[in-house]
C-alpha cells in the first residue's frame, strides 16, 4: 500500500510538472529566439542612417566594424546597383522582396535573416563612391545557434528542478504513507493474533479517524470474543459438573446392585451414558481448543496412528496395508481430532471383525485440496449410513465413534461415507477439506506436528 501511495503521488506530480514545465520550456525557447531577432533588428536599424548617408569606403568600413563587433550575426548590405558590402551572402527571395521596400524577417537554411529596406537613397551610390539611387537592403543573419543560445542550459535547469520536485514529493508521500500504513499494519497484526487464539491481542487506534474507528471496533470485538469464550468455558465446566455429578451417584448405586446380571447390565448402560456425556463435553470445548486457522499434516498423523495400531494388528495376525501419499497433506482439522477420527475408524475394524481379518488404509490428496482417507476391511461389512449416525450400530456398540469421525470430517468441510470395500467388507471414507489460508498468510504456513500427549506412544 505504501508503494501504491508513493506511485500515485509521483504520477500526479509528474502530470503537474509536465503541464507546467513543458510550456515553460517552449516559452524559454521562444524568448531566446525573440531576443536574438530583436538584437539583429536593432543592429540593422543602427546601420540604416549610415547606409542612407554614407557610401563607398566609409560605408564598407562601418559595416566591417559592425561585423567585427558582432561576428555571430554577420551583416551584409545589398546596394541598389547589385553590389554587396560586408559578409558574403546570397541574394535570397527575401532580399528581393525587401528591395521592393518591405522590411522582413525570413527563415533561411541555418537560421533567420533580418532584412531592413533603406529607400530613397539621396543621389544614389555605388561601392566605388559614385552616385546612389533606389533601395538598399541591410541583411543581418542570425544563425540557429544564436537563436537557441542559453535554451539548453535553461532546459537542463528545468529538468533538474522537476526531478528535485519529484524526489521531494516521493519522500513526502512515503512519510505520509507510513503514517497511514503503520496503524493499518498494526490492525492487521492484531486481527491475525486474535484469529490465532490470542484473545489478549489489541490494536492501538491511531492514524486517520476511520482507521482509529476500525481499531476501536476490533478491540471491542476482541473483548466480546473473550467474554463469549469465557462464558463458554464456564458453561462447559458447569455442564461437566452438572452432568457428571448425578452420573457418579448412578454409577455408585449401580455397583451396589446385588444381582450380578442386573449390575452388569445397568453398569453397561451407565458406561454408555458416560461416553455420550464425555463426547458432548468434548464437542463443547472444540471451538475453545482450536483456533480459526486449524490445520495439520494428514500424512504425518495417519502415519503415526497406523504405526501405533500396527502392534495390535501384528498380535492379532491381521494383514495391514498402508498406502499414503507423501506429505505434507494439509487439512482443516487439528492433529488431535484427526488422530481421534483415525483411531475411531481403526478401532471399528478391530472391534467388529475377527482376529486375522485383513484391513487397509489409503490416504490420497484431493484435487480440490485436503485429503481422502479410506479404511477397508475384509470383514462382514457394515449397514450403510445408519451406522454413521449417533446411537445406531448393529454390533453392540453405541455408534458414537463413527459419528465423531463424521463430525470431524464435516467441520473440515468434508464428509464421511460408508460403502462396500475392495477387500470384501466395509469401506469407510473420510473426506477432509483443505485448511483456510488467506493469501497474505501463504508465506507463514505452519505444519503442526501430529503428537498427541497422553495417547498413542506418549
Amino acid at each position, binding site marked *: 500500500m505504501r508503494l501504491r501511495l508513493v506511485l500515485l503521488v509521483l504520477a500526479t506530480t509528474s502530470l503537474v510538472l509536465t503541464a507546467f514545465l513543458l510550456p515553460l520550456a517552449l516559452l524559454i525557447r521562444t524568448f531566446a529566439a525573440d531576443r536574438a531577432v530583436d538584437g539583429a533588428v536593432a543592429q540593422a536599424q543602427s546601420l540604416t542612417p549610415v547606409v542612407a548617408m554614407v557610401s563607398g569606403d566609409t560605408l564598407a568600413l562601418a559595416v566591417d566594424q559592425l561585423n567585427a563587433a558582432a561576428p555571430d550575426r554577420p551583416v551584409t548590405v545589398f546596394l541598389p546597383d547589385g553590389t554587396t558590402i560586408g559578409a558574403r551572402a546570397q541574394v535570397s527571395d527575401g532580399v528581393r522582396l525587401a528591395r521592393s521596400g518591405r522590411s522582413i524577417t525570413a527563415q533561411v537554411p541555418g537560421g533567420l535573416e533580418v532584412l531592413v529596406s533603406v529607400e530613397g537613397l539621396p543621389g544614389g551610390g555605388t561601392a566605388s563612391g559614385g552616385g546612389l539611387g533606389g533601395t538598399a537592403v541591410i541583411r543581418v543573419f542570425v544563425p540557429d545557434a544564436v537563436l537557441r543560445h542559453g535554451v539548453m542550459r535553461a532546459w537542463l535547469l528545468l529538468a533538474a528542478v522537476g526531478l528535485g520536485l519529484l524526489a521531494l514529493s516521493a519522500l513526502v508521500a512515503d512519510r505520509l504513507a507510513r503514517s497511514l500504513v503503520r496503524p493499518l499494519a498494526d490492525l492487521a497484526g492484531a486481527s491475525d493474533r486474535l484469529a490465532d487464539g490470542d484473545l489478549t491481542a489489541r490494536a492501538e487506534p491511531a492514524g486517520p479517524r476511520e482507521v482509529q474507528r476500525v481499531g476501536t471496533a476490533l478491540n471491542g470485538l476482541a473483548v466480546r470474543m473473550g467474554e463469549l469464550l469465557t462464558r463458554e468455558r464456564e458453561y462447559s465446566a458447569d455442564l461437566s*459438573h452438572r*452432568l*457428571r*455429578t448425578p452420573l*457418579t*451417584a448412578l454409577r*455408585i448405586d449401580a455397583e451396589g446392585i446385588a444381582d450380578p446380571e442386573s449390575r452388569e447390565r445397568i453398569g453397561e448402560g451407565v458406561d454408555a451414558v458416560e461416553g455420550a456425556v464425555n463426547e458432548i463435553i468434548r464437542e463443547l470445548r472444540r471451538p475453545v481448543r482450536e483456533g480459526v486457522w486449524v490445520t495439520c499434516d494428514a500424512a504425518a498423523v495417519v502415519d503415526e496412528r497406523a504405526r501405533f495400531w500396527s502392534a495390535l494388528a501384528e498380535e492379532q495376525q491381521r494383514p495391514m496395508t498402508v498406502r499414503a501419499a507423501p506429505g505434507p497433506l494439509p487439512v482443516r482439522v487439528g492433529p488431535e481430532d484427526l488422530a*481421534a477420527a483415525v483411531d475411531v475408524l*481403526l*478401532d471399528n475394524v478391530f472391534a467388529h471383525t475377527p482376529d486375522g481379518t485383513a484391513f487397509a488404509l489409503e490416504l490420497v490428496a484431493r484435487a480440490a485440496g485436503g485429503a481422502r482417507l479410506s479404511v477397508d476391511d475384509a470383514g462382514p461389512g457394515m449397514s450403510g449410513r445408519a451406522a454413521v449416525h449417533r446411537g445406531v450400530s448393529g454390533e453392540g456398540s453405541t455408534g458414537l465413534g463413527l459419528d465423531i469421525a463424521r463430525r470431524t470430517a464435516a467441520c473440515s468441510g468434508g464428509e464421511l461415507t460408508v460403502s462396500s470395500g475392495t477387500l470384501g467388507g466395509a469401506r469407510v471414507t473420510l473426506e477432509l477439506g483443505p485448511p483456510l489460508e488467506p493469501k497474505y498468510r501463504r508465506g507463514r504456513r505452519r505444519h503442526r506436528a501430529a503428537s498427541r500427549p497422553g495417547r498413542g506412544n506418549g
Partner: protein
Amino acid sequence: MAQLLLVEDDAAIRRALIRSLSALGHAVASAATAMEAVGHVVEHRPDLVLLDLGLPDLDGGEALRLMRAVSTVPVIVATARDDEAEMIRLLDNGADDYIVKPFGAGQVDARIRAVLRRAAAATPADATITVGELMLRPDAYEALLNGTMLDLSPKEFDLLHYLASRPGQVVTKRDLLTNVWRQPYGGADKTVDVHLAWLRRKLGESAQEPRYLRTVRGVGVKLVDPTQ
C-alpha cells in the same frame, strides 16, 4: 479401617458413597460445605479427605488451600473437569490425588488405599519393583529386562508399573482405563489392547508366546514371573 471425611454437597452421591465406603470397611464422616469440612479437619483430624470441588460456599480450590493451611491430611479431589490444566492446578494447590467424575466406589477405594500407603512412610510408593528379570524404578521412570533398559513411552511405563505392582493379579480392561488412563470404560478401550501389544513387543514376547504378560480371556491381563 480409615477415618474418612467426605466433602460433597450432592446428597445422592454423599449417601451412595457413605454406604459403599462403609461397606468396604471405612469410617465415613461427611460435610456438605467447605467451611464445615475445614472445621471437621481441625477438630477431628481424619486420615483422609475426599473433597468435591463443586461446593456451594467456596470454590473447591480455595477449600483445598484452606485445608492445606491448617492440616497436612491427605486429600483426594473429586472433579468433573478432566482437562490437563485443571489437574495441574489441583495438584499444585496441594491435592495428593484426583479422581474424575463419574467414578465408582471401587475406584475411590483403590485411590484411598494408594494415597494412605504413600502417606505411611513404611512402604514408600516409589520403591523398586522386581518381577523375575523385570525391574522397575518408578522414581526414575526406568524399566529394565535382564539388565537392559527398555525404551517405553510414559503410558507404557504406567501400564507396566500398574501390572507389576500387582504380580499374578488379573487386572481388567476397565481397571486399566480407570487407573492408568483415568478414562471411563466404553470409550476408546481398544487403546489398552494396543498399548499391551506394544508392551509385549518391547518385552520381546507375543500374545502367542507370552512370558510376563498373560491374557486371561474374557477377564483381563496379568503380569507374572515367567521363571516360577
